């Protein structure tokens, strides 16, 4: 009797992110009738899809015990590079160049952090500023590809397949593929082991430096892909895009129950964390909350999520 009650409580705690999301939706729906309108719901889905791609990469890094602040800048870099290449060399080359640029930033992060053992916070903070600088150098601060972007690319950013935006299909497919990678393959078990106890994993024969570096490559490549999606949605590469995305992504991962000290986390709960962050922003908008106050609220949620992580890990 007592045992089953305890199990139930554990199971309930495991579903806390989902319950939070449902509660948030319920409250917003009761306070404003525009929340449930098809237009608004579509908007939430599309906004969430780009953040979800970034947050999934962030989940890899955080499970392996790391941290990446450079994803917002990387998304902007990839969006601009994709647009530049696309105008000259076509759609696929553009998308490939965008994702590759993101992966390259991730590889740089990964090598510096894993091989040189530099603190991830400092490394990626530096990379965030450095990459943003490169974006402005490349573009001169002006949007890229206002004209000349392939029609298919513009369509990708706005049209639907089976009634659902193409942009939403991307994270849906990635969620399935990456969950398989993380939970069903030897590589995935090594990522968890490295984050849970780097030295113990090393002494078990895991090449921890490669594993850590690889998670930053995943994170960079996915941030790059998100940047390409953002460019499709904005119909241009915007050098200022993606600001504060890193904070939203990290908050989403932590809200989804991943441990900031590594070794724990699931992609599906990260997606729920993304929805919480996006719906929160959406509902504050609908309720006409002053935009300055919105920043205060989002910042508070991020700190609260991190504090909840510490309290969880104490038990």
């Amino acid at each position, binding site marked *: 009797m*007592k*045992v089953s009650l305890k199990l139930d409580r554990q199971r309930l705690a495991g579903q806390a992110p989902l319950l939070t999301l449902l509660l948030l939706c319920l409250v917003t729906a009761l306070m404003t009738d525009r929340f449930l309108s098809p237009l608004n719901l579509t908007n939430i889905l599309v906004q969430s899809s780009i953040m979800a791609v970034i947050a999934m990469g962030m989940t890899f890094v955080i499970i392996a015990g790391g941290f990446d602040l450079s994803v917002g800048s990387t998304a902007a870099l990839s969006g601009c590079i994709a647009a530049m290449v696309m105008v000259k060399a076509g759609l696929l080359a553009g998308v490939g160049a965008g994702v590759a640029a993101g992966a390259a930033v991730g590889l740089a992060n990964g090598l510096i952090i894993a091989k040189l053992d530099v603190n991830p916070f400092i490394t990626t903070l530096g990379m965030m500023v450095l990459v943003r600088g490169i974006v402005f150098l490349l573009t001169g601060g002006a949007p890229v590809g206002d004209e000349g972007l392939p029609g298919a690319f513009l369509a990708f950013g706005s049209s639907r397949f089976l009634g659902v935006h193409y942009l939403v299909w991307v994270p849906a497919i990635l969620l399935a593929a990456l969950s*398989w990678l993380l939970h*069903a*393959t*030897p590589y995935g*078990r*090594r990522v*968890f*082991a490295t984050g*849970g*106890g780097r*030295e*113990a*994993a*090393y*002494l*078990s*024969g*895991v*090449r921890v430096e490669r594993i850590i570096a690889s998670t930053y490559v995943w994170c960079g490549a996915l941030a790059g892909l998100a940047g390409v999606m953002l460019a499709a949605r904005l119909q241009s590469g915007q050098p200022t895009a993606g600001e504060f995305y890193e904070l939203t992504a990290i908050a989403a991962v932590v809200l989804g129950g991943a*441990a900031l000290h590594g*070794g*724990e986390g699931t992609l599906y709960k990260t997606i729920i964390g993304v929805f919480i962050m996006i719906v929160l922003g959406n509902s504050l908008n609908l309720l006409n909350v002053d935009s300055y106050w919105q920043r205060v609220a989002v910042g508070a949620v991020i700190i609260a999520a991190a504090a909840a992580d510490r309290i969880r890990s104490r038990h």
Partner: protein
Amino acid sequence: MMAEASTVPAAVVPAPAVSASHVAKRFGATTALDDVSFNVTAGEIHALVGENGAGKSTLMRILDGVHRPDAGTVAIDGIPCRLASPRDAIAAGIVMIPQELRLVPALSVAENLALGDWPTRRLLGVPIFVDRARLRAEAGRALSDIGFAPDPDRRVDSLGFAERQLVAIAKALRRRCRVLILDEPTAALEKREIDRLFGVLQGLKSQGTAIIYVSHRLDEVVALADRCTVLRDGRVAATARRGAFSADDLVHAMTGRAIAAHEPPDMPRGDVVLEDGATLADTMRVHGGEVLGLAGLLGSGADRVLRRLFGLSERPSVVRVNGTTRRLATPACAVAAGIGMVPAERRLGLVMSQSVRDNILLPSLERLRRGGRLDRAAGARLVAGLMDLLDIRPRRPDMKAAALSGGNQQKVILAKWLARAVGVLLLDEPTQGIDVAAKAQIHALVRDFARRGGGVIVGSSDLAELVRLCDSVVALRRGTPVARIERSDLSETRLRTAIGG
């Protein structure tokens, strides 16, 4: 033989410095302590022994103010009191010296001694400046009280463990500690340092300090303690005065049965399975079916030899495995060559936040790959078989490694390498801090691994363990093998002479 015989009239005996009467403590469904009474008087060394999970830690934490008992009382000088936090305990003169010392590595010896209670100079009546001269003088006095004189300006992280421990004791005394609780104080000490520590403890005892001494090393308890209390399954199994108990009595009381001394049977030796490329001569080589010991004083380099053989040196090491020369740059190379290592610290052997299953399978993931993915069913079978074979309790593969007892954690680390089917096992202090019963089981598993043709190298500072477990032992001095002693010659005395202890 093991019963408390109080022939002295109660009125003559002073109240115990600290006592726990009929205390009970539960954590969830587990009863950690059940009707336990324990006391220590001024000028007495009272040893507390028991297997892992017997309730020693819980009792210590109650006396140290970390836990509050569910039932029963704690009294200081016979006066019942409530210790709500370690702060209360320190105020009452009870100080615990845990295995992991609570010192600040980057501060000097003097600063550590004064931490939280700095001597200050005042400016306009406000205490602003730290009075360095007084800080140093007070530190010197506190240290010389226990006959230990390091430079008070030395940083604590430049001291060895034994010296840091003495600093911790000096710090406790500076706080007017009347009851000193020591948790496994000799686990990381070598013989000479243990003798020095015992000298210090005898000195404190004669000055009237009450000492609670918790240890797994029963020979030390017999040599040192005025009284000894044995806990088993959260109850007091026995209490006896000095001279009324032997190490065997203690084992019997701790486990409820006698443990037979284990004599390794003579086994046919196979071919050489591992040979160190760095040492000349034929000292550092192990055959299939052989358990080779490494004996040496602390810092003699047994651990460095093991690390080298596992690819953990600064530079890649060269070894011969089954006759093939291999260059080991990282542990991954060593594992690929069929070498497994059980480190001295269990947190390095296990990913504590992961399940027992994930830990056991970690070195074998590549072998369980089937078409890109992990063959979960095969993995589950492997884990279930090993948990049965090694008697890992509880039999729950999805339990987090951190939740297991020390002995069972050590078995999981062994299971990890058995799953990988390694040919050579390197063990560093394999039974440090593990209770008697689990120790015997681990010895049996190691012998069994050798009987199946595996080669084993064991580094241990416990010479009795080496004599019991090994076919031959290499004695080390300053990282160099000085002698190889075969089974027929093996004895503790012979080993102690060889390592120069």
